[in-house]
């Protein structure tokens, strides 16, 4: 597909024009963008020193800052306890009221989503790379580092180079047992981990309109693995329905122009697409699941969790598949909901019981095993099937450990069979 030669703006350009109070922005231009929402997790502890070194005396807008600790909750090491303490002290000193501390906690991106902190038209930044997930609200949401966050807290703005946009147009229908995770893995397999470096990714087309908000979160979440600055879906009635009861500030819905100029357009047809799996050691090493299943890859650990795929819909689907089965002998199955609210919902629906009856461990909400620094750490030569987002060497512990990234249902199926399988054989 060739890019159109229009002169309108893409969705990302519209949002960045709004953020910089400009009528029009063009790719490559450096703008100063006013920030609508700034989010910090534990890495925000490293924001405090530069904030003071800058001579900042107060946070630009205390109702636009959210702190959500998630990597080590409750603190699992003394080092993590110190990070949490630094954040609590900073929040108290600078009067930051929106702190999702232990007991109200969850993975930072899920906290932002389920509490309506990011709305259409926003420019949102967070100290975690998967902040891209919130682009599903029709916002530009990007990860930044803690020193940069200090400048945002002090000034309420940051510089951004207006990115060119990669449009991904999706049509067709998911086959039975094929999900939004398989879609985003397929795209990663095609465009690779550098396929959207510095770019905005705009998902559109009838199949995207048909996606639920949680599914849109999943696909925008993994635009990070494509190198993208942000991943976005234009707002529609589903967005408004999701946000209406919870939005924390006014929405400014924006839409791409019909004659917007895209750097590249990628067309994806879901018809006939099999489930996908990202094999070691890169999220772009993607193959059809049925093909990998034929190799009978044995697993030592299975992880159903992370900001990518641990929402109530994912856990419900997983629990349905789990019923009547047991976790395979010799397999450790860790299930970690994306937020405390989701944990509570699982409790009400009996989902926790279903998993624990099967021999899984259902943990407190956190990033859990995803990042190899808290729990569920892999020994050398171990193999893990995971619903998370990265499988680079050392991601979940030992650098030799091998991680396969899958949809939630395929993850649960691996726990049941003790190897990578096509989950459609189980249902």
């Amino acid at each position: 597909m060739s890019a159109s030669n229009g002169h309108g703006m893409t969705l990302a350009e519209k949002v960045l024009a709004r953020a910089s109070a400009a009528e029009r922005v063009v790719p490559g231009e450096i703008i100063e963008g006013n920030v609508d929402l700034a989010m910090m997790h534990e890495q925000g502890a490293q924001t405090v020193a530069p904030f003071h070194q800058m001579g900042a005396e107060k946070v630009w807008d205390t109702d636009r800052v959210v702190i959500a600790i998630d990597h080590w909750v409750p603190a699992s090491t003394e080092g993590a306890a110190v990070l949490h303490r630094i954040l609590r002290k900073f929040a108290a000193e600078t009067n930051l009221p929106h702190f999702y501390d232990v007991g109200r906690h969850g993975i930072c991106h899920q906290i932002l989503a389920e509490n309506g902190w990011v709305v259409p038209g926003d420019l949102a930044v967070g100290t975690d790379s998967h902040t891209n997930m919130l682009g599903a609200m029709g916002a530009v949401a990007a990860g930044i580092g803690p020193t940069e966050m200090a400048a945002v807290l002090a000034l309420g703005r940051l510089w951004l180079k207006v990115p060119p946009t990669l449009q991904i147009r999706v049509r067709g229908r998911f086959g039975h047992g094929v999900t939004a995770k398989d879609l985003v893995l397929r795209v990663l397999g095609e465009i690779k981990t550098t396929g959207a470096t510095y770019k905005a990714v705009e998902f559109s087309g009838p199949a995207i309109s048909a996606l639920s908000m949680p599914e849109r979160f999943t696909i925008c979440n993994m635009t990070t693995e494509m190198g993208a600055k942000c991943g976005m879906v234009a707002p529609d009635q589903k967005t408004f329905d999701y946000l209406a009861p919870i939005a924390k500030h006014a929405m400014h819905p924006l839409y791409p122009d019909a004659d917007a100029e895209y750097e590249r357009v990628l067309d994806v047809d879901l018809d006939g697409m099999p489930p996908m799996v990202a094999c070691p050691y890169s999220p772009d090493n993607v193959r059809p699941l049925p093909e990998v299943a034929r190799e009978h890859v044995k697993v030592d650990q299975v992880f159903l969790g992370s900001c990518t795929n641990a929402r109530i819909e994912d856990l419900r689907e997983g629990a349905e598949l789990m019923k009547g089965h047991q976790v395979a002998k010799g397999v450790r199955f860790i299930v970690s909901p994306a937020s405390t609210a989701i944990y509570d919902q699982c409790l009400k629906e009996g989902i926790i019981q279903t998993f624990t009856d099967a021999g899984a461990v259902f943990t407190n909400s956190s990033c859990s095993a995803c990042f190899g620094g808290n729990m569920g750490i892999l020994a050398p030569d171990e193999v893990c099937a995971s619903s998370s987002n990265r499988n680079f060497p050392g991601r979940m512990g030992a650098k030799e450990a091998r991680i396969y990234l899958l949809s939630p249902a395929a993850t649960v199926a691996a726990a049941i069979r003790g190897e990578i399988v096509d989950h459609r054989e189980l249902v």
Partner: protein
Amino acid sequence: MQEVIEGRVWTLGKDVDTDGIIGGKYLTIIDPNELKKHVFEIALPEFAANARTGDIIVADENFGCGSSREHAPQAMKAIGVGAVVADSFARIFFRNSINLGLPTVEAKGVRAIFEKGDTARIEMRAGRITNLRTGATVTFPPLPPHLLSLLEAGGLVEKVRAELAARRAGAPAAP
């Protein structure tokens, strides 16, 4: 920021992710002098024990992909890395690195002209990198003025400090 940066080269491949630079298990470490002991533990295990101040990292595409952890450029800076050049960078690493005042240069084709132990010369404003052993060069578009000014200020902290100080000086005195 030095106009011309010279140093001994260490080479890396493509897609060196932040776990390869500093692993997840070290993310609760705040002290850069502790962090630096573990820099490149996965991607270049012999580096930390043998690094010299001013060494230059030369990598292929997508250097620093993965997480947003500033620990990565922080640890590199703490151990004395003088500059990092690559065929391309992941965006958050690039921003973090510039914000910390670590010269970061994207130059297509740079990895191919270096071997481990060569000496590199980087001319920041002229936009040229030379292998002083072989004479091979690649050119790159110099950083835009906005980013050069960040490096010249010594990083983002210094730049914002100056802006806030100017704002206070220009503001009417508190009652």
